[in-house]
């Protein structure tokens, strides 16, 4: 099995670009969102919302502009990526709008729509301006420096709901940690692509584990310390978990050293145990996870996690129907961290499975682009970006459903949160960019119809 066999189409002069498929899938995604929007209105007020046409037109226009950018500047890009992003974003807007109906003083959907528009604008900008992802390799150290600054700045701002991960300026607030995710992925990909041989083959050997030299190991340990540091200072278990998982996955893919996973898990376990035991905010999350109903037994009523579990249970197999659930009982984070509970209650296990599969498909397309690319940086970047999505979905969905301790994170595209939706659109833009290169016919291939020889050492 080689890099290109999985990807290589039958020899012919024109490779399929499948932009038409993308367009029809986009139409479907917009229609599903519009139907959802109408269903909420019908269920809640007995009438289709008056602005359903405007909502549909707005979402459709965004989708169309994004599609045109892809068609013109990334014609070979994966046709599934953009429709999935549009569908998830559209569904998120429906869910937020639906929750807005129960909180007349807190209207989040219009703001989310503005952020989504900004996200799509950045998506178009990235697709149009970034002609080749390999350019990013040059900015690896600038990326990590920017990421560090972004992560450290919120320490100087007041905590919101227990976590210091926001920057508030005037009425605007955003989570710089969200953007740091992309920058870190870029840095990891560039660093590991450059040093993977040194990491894999040099250094001392202790028992069965080959340790790299301190010069190569240093930055990695620094990143680990940073992730724990971010957690402790900002009380952001989710982001630190995400960075760490991202790092371990990319290190493993780059070096193929299983030992790194063992070391990574060990470090993660030690870090999590120490923080889970001594940091009160995190400690209480762990307690909630171990016994979600403790506060009920104590006569204080259900906590957020218990309410979330109630919401999922109320959905059952088929859900209550959009607009007909009571997930607003979850409280203040119902539109952000806990938005998945609304999906679970109103769309049921069936709808939730569909949502999970959409994410899985998006992740799979990222991995597929990674498999098809030939430059190590591009591979690691696409794996990293896809893994960010996968880990994020797992950490937040597992958290709100009681599988793992809860961490404050945003469900990609679904949840209320400007920085999150913008960041995810940039991730999708980068996936479009790498998949375009991955699927683009290589020089010589179009002319001869012969698969280019594999130059790179494949282990």
């Amino acid at each position, binding site marked *: *099995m*080689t*890099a290109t066999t999985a990807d290589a189409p039958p020899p012919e002069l024109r490779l399929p670009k499948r932009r038409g498929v993308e367009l029809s899938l986009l139409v479907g995604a917009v229609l599903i969102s519009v139907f959802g929007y109408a269903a909420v209105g019908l269920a809640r007020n007995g009438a289709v919302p008056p602005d359903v046409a405007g909502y549909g037109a707005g979402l459709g226009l965004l989708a169309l502009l994004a599609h045109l950018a892809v068609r013109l500047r990334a014609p070979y890009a994966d046709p599934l990526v953009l429709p999935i992003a549009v569908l998830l974003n559209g569904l998120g807007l429906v869910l937020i709008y639906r929750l807005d109906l129960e909180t007349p003083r807190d209207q989040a959907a219009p703001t989310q729509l503005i952020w989504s528009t900004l996200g799509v604008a950045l998506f178009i900008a990235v697709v149009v301006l970034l002609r080749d992802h390999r350019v990013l390799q040059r900015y690896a150290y600038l990326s990590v420096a920017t990421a560090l600054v972004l992560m450290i700045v919120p320490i100087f701002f007041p905590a919101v709901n227990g976590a210091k991960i926001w920057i508030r300026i005037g009425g605007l607030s955003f989570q710089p940690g969200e953007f740091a995710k992309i920058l870190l992925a870029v840095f990891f990909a560039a660093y590991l692509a450059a040093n993977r041989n040194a990491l894999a083959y040099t250094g001392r050997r202790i028992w069965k584990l080959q340790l790299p030299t301190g010069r190569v190991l240093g930055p990695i340990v620094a990143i680990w310390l940073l992730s724990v540091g971010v957690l402790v200072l900002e009380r952001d278990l989710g982001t630190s978990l995400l960075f760490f998982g991202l790092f371990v*996955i990319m290190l*493993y*893919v*780059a070096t*193929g050293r299983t030992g790194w996973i063992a070391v990574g898990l060990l470090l993660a376990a030690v870090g999590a145990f120490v923080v889970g035991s001594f940091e009160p905010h995190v400690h209480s999350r762990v307690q909630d996870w171990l016994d979600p*109903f403790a506060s*009920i037994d104590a006569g204080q*009523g*259900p906590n957020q996690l*218990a309410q979330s*579990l*109630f919401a*999922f*249970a*109320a*959905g*059952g*197999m*088929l859900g*209550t*129907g959009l607009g007909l659930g*009571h997930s607003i*009982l979850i409280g203040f984070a119902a539109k952000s961290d806990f938005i998945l509970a609304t999906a*679970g209650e109103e769309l*049921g*296990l069936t709808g*939730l*499975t569909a949502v*999970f599969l959409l*994410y*899985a498909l998006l*992740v*799979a397309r990222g*991995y597929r682009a*990674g*498999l098809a690319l030939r430059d*190590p940086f591009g*591979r690691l970047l696409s*794996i990293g970006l*896809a*893994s960010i999505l*996968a*880990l994020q*979905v*797992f950490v937040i*969905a*597992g958290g709100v*459903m*009681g*599988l793992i301790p809860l961490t404050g994170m945003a469900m990609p595209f679904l949840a209320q949160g400007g920085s999150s939706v913008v960041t995810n659109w940039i991730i999708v833009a980068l996936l479009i960019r790498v998949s375009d290169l991955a699927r683009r016919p290589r020089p010589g291939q179009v002319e001869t119809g012969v698969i280019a020889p594999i130059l790179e050492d*494949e*282990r």
Partner: protein
Amino acid sequence: MIRYIRRAAAFCLLLLVALLLNAARVQVFEADELNDNPANRRTTIDRYDQPRGNILVGARAVTGSEDTGEQLAYERTYLHGPLYAPVTGYASQTYGTTLLENAEDGILSGTDSLLAPLPLWNEITRSRQPGGDVVTTIKDSIQRAAYEGLSGRRGAVAAVEPSTGRILALVSTPSYDPERLSGTGAEVTDAWARLNAAKSRPMLNRAIRQTYPPGSTFKIVTAAAALDARVVTDPDAATDTPSPYVLPGTTTTLPDEARGCAEASLAEAIRVSCNTVMAHLGVEVGLDGMLEAVGRFGFNDDGLRIPSGVAKSNFDTDMSDDQLALSSIGQFDTTATPLQMAMVASAVANGGDLRYPHLVDRTTTHDGDTVRQQGSRSYHQAMNPSTAVQLQRMMVDVVENGTGSNAAIDGVRVGGKTGTAQHGIDNSGTPYAWFISWAQAPDSGRPAVAVAVVVEDASADRADISGGGSAAPIARAVMEAALDG
């Protein structure tokens, strides 16, 4: 690198599988347990998110529902709340439901499976039917006559249609407006605290939930027992009872307030209300015979439902003869609800056939289709028909020539029995005034109504209190209303 990418992808797949399995765990396998958790408010919210069905008196709803826009959206409203409170009870977001609101909750809230067009329909569609209606047997004019007759004094009225058991009026005063308890918030909790603290106990349903010593009205039961047991064969024959009467096995004497009770006949004892004769007859019938007789009227039955539960009327099952003597004139531990005593009058009026009392005529869907029709059914043959005929004559005599003259209605056959029940330590409490009666229009083959009235008026001068003085006029007003309807 390809191999490791594939393994990393497999890891992501593992995460996805873990999420899906966990979702199935929460949403399918643990769903029932989570749904049933008492801290889960969904059931409560669903319950109030549609208007509740109505309780009807005649063709008119005496209840309503109002959308408050709050989380528990629909609150109950009541038309003439205090008048009908002993029938409807309350339906409160905060304090639950009582009486018909409670007994017919499934129909009213729309959860009763009988409302669904098909079996399991609601399970499949996850919807509830609109709340159905409950049509009561109450007659508005009779209810009002009873309520106005009591005019705020503490007391209760129960009126029954003897031939069917339909309850025509159920009044308890002082009353309260159940609307004050609808909904949530400080107003509701304040009203609740105030109503519960009130000395007059306005939320007590005196007609079916409070028992009183029935006093002399109980003599009808004793008379029926004596006639059925053939202890007395001729009601007009003298009995060998002295006045006063020494309670068996004691030196305590039981006096009569009425004159001419010595050796009086049963009919005379009923007409002027002799304690001695009736106490003696109870002893002669014996404990077993009395227990059998009172049971046929409904005493000692704690399962009586109309469909709200009715408090058990008591006649002790283990007594010495002197206690039995006192019990036979409605004293000692004998207690009865006003509904129970209306049943006694009803059994006499209906030839001994006591119909099961009921308050709900039928329940319907939201569209008015009948879901359940409550037919008339027999409760017990309370006495022999011949005994009933003899008692009817005696009760008519009470009204025409005896203590119940205040209940007489021109041109109508009215039978009655007064009662003045002593209670409290050494009988120090203000006595309760009782009157039970029935009325039959001259052109009718069956009696129109049987009534029991009790007035517990603490403010009245003790000497004025008597069944004939305080309670009989109320009973007459109720009977007149029933005859008009």
